[in-house]
Structures are given as C-alpha cells and as structure tokens.
C-alpha cells in the first residue's frame, strides 16, 4: 500500500497490538482474556504490517509459520500426555496450585492461534503460493 498515512498509522499501531496480545495471553489466568484472544491480537498486528508494508517486515515470522503451528500443537499434546504419566489421566494438572500450568498452556495456545490465523490469511490471500505437486 502506497499511502503514507496508512503506512505510518500501521507502523505506530502494530507494536501496541503485539503488546496487548502478549498481555492478554500471559494474564489469562488472572483477568478476562486468554490464549485465543491474545493469539488473535498478535495475528492482527502481523496482518496489519503485512497489508501495509508487504512481506519484508514480517518475513521471519512468515517463513517459519508452519513450524510455529506444528510446535504449538506438539507442546500442547505433550502437556496432555505429561498428565497421563504424572496424574493418571489426560490433561491432568501437572503443577497444581500454581498459575504456571495456565500460563504455559496460554502462551502455547496463543502461539498456535497466532500462527494459525496468520497462515490462513497468507494462504487465502495468495501471499504465499502453494506448490502444486
């Protein structure tokens, strides 16, 4: 996008979107919010940069988006399996009476939702082309 007003506004707005996304994700155990909301806010900041500045600003995230998605799913699943070995059933709370469990799961979910929404956007809008096989 060529308009300098839109580019400047997006550049000033996107750090606040990232910050509020991180805040929502890490304070989910204490306040309204949580992993999904934080992840969507993070993704909205990245999409704003992607729309206004092109791929160059978010190239590091955009290249590794599939890895973020997969790593988030694997960590979430392994947290579930850790409950089997510690407590006896799936998704048993490994660290009871401390908010660590909720914070870790929230951060993992926010990473996963961030990667997921951004990947949906990237693939549906044709920013990255799927190779025909």
């Amino acid at each position, binding site marked *: 996008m060529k308009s300098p007003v839109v580019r400047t506004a997006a550049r000033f707005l996107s750090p606040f979107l990232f910050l509020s996304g991180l805040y929502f994700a890490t304070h989910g155990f204490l306040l309204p919010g949580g992993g999904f909301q934080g992840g969507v806010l993070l993704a909205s900041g990245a999409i704003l940069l992607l729309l206004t500045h092109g791929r160059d600003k978010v190239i590091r995230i955009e290249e590794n988006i599939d890895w973020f998605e997969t790593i988030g799913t694997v960590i*979430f*699943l392994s947290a579930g399996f850790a409950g089997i070995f510690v407590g006896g059933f799936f*998704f048993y709370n490994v660290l009871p009476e401390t908010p660590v469990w909720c914070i870790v799961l929230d951060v993992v979910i926010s990473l996963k939702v961030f990667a997921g929404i951004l990947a949906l956007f990237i693939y549906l809008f044709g920013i990255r082309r799927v190779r025909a096989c």
Partner: protein
Amino acid sequence: MMSKKLERVISLFLTLIIIIIVVNGLSLTYEDKADSPIKEYIIENHEETGAVNLVEAVLLDFRAYDTFGEVIILYIAIAGVIILGKEMRKDKTEDEQDQEEPIEDSKKPKEEKT
C-alpha cells in the same frame, strides 16, 4: 406432486415445531440448570488449578479436552486451506501452463533467497 397448499401447511407445521423446540430448550436451560451442583464444585475447587479467573480454570483444567479440540480444529482448517490451494493450483497448471510459468519463474528465486 404435492399441491402448494399442502406444502405451505407442512412448512408452517415444521416451523411451529422448531419454535416449540427452541423455546422449550431455552426455558429448560435457564430455569433448571442455573443452580446445578457443578457450579458450586467449580467455585470451591478452582484454587487447585492455580487460576484466579474461573473461565480460565474451566478452559485449561476442568475442560482441557475442549480446548484441545478447538486447537485441533484450527490445525485441520489450515490443512484444508493448504490442500484446497494445492488442488486449485494443480488445475491451473494443467490448463494454463504456458501462461503461468514465466510469472512463476520470476517469483520463485526471490522466495527461495529470502
């Protein structure tokens, strides 16, 4: 073939049944389930999870299965989008291979470099 009058009567009947079901369900939900024992259980035991927020305690501890399902749904949605793009790309390359290739060649080295 059914006559139009009969069709109308049947559709009106079905609409009435749906309205009755929905109203019945809503009234059940609000009157009988409002003070179920699960509410007191969650309020009493949410300190074990470490979460101060009750919603988060339910989402990540009592009902972590549900959150896991949501996460998997998002994963499957992205896999579906990628597969759909692949299929469309395959059709395109079969139809317009001569027109598409020069654009692809100019773009591909850029993507691989970065």
